[in-house]
């Protein structure tokens, strides 16, 4: 995972590979550390995610809720088929902001 600072309070995270119960804790940690450093608005670039399950989704939703609670936001940029599939199955594509690549 690569964190790119867009401004002092906006970050773009480029995620790759698998986002499952094994790797989701890393995403949670990066989101937490970034928030602690003052990031409010997150863009998760997810075009290179090969597989995502409900644990990966839960980590994203957790980050979204925490950011919203602190007046910020979290959006998904260019979701891969694997990401889109889980968002659509859970109907969260209607709730989570998606930025097309």
């Amino acid at each position, binding site marked *: 995972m690569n964190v790119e600072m867009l401004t002092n309070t906006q970050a773009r995270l480029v995620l790759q590979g*698998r986002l*499952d*119960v*094994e790797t989701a804790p890393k995403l949670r940690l990066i989101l937490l550390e970034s928030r602690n450093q003052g990031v409010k608005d997150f863009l998760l670039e997810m075009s290179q995610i090969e*597989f995502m*399950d*409900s*644990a990966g*989704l*839960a980590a994203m*939703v*957790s980050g*979204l*809720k925490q950011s919203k609670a602190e007046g910020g936001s979290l959006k998904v940029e260019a979701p891969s*088929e*694997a990401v889109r*599939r*889980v968002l659509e*199955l*859970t*109907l*969260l594509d*209607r*709730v*989570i902001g998606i930025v097309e690549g």
Partner: protein
Amino acid sequence: MTAKHTFPARTAELEALGEFVQQHGLGPLVELGVTELVTNAILHGGARCIRVRVDPASGQLWVYDNGQGFNPLEALPRPMGELREGGYGVAIIHKVFRNLRYCRRRGWNCIRARFGEVEK
């Protein structure tokens, strides 16, 4: 012809499980559903060993684990479209598979699922 994949009940094994599912020509929805079933067995049932058996020709699969008696199908699927930090796994399982059956036999949990027509 059925194919079997037996592995230690560790989340680090999920990637290899995905490869097994793909090698047998099963699609991404099946991979997602099996991953959810196996993750449940690892996290909630305390299993040490998992076995997944697939029969692509008849569109069936079985997930066995030797953890404590645990039937994830008893959990009511929670509503979709809600922002919450968990509880999506069982809902996904019910969306991806049909004719889900659970049984407990000789110290093993077994879930049988049918797949195929819901693939998109």
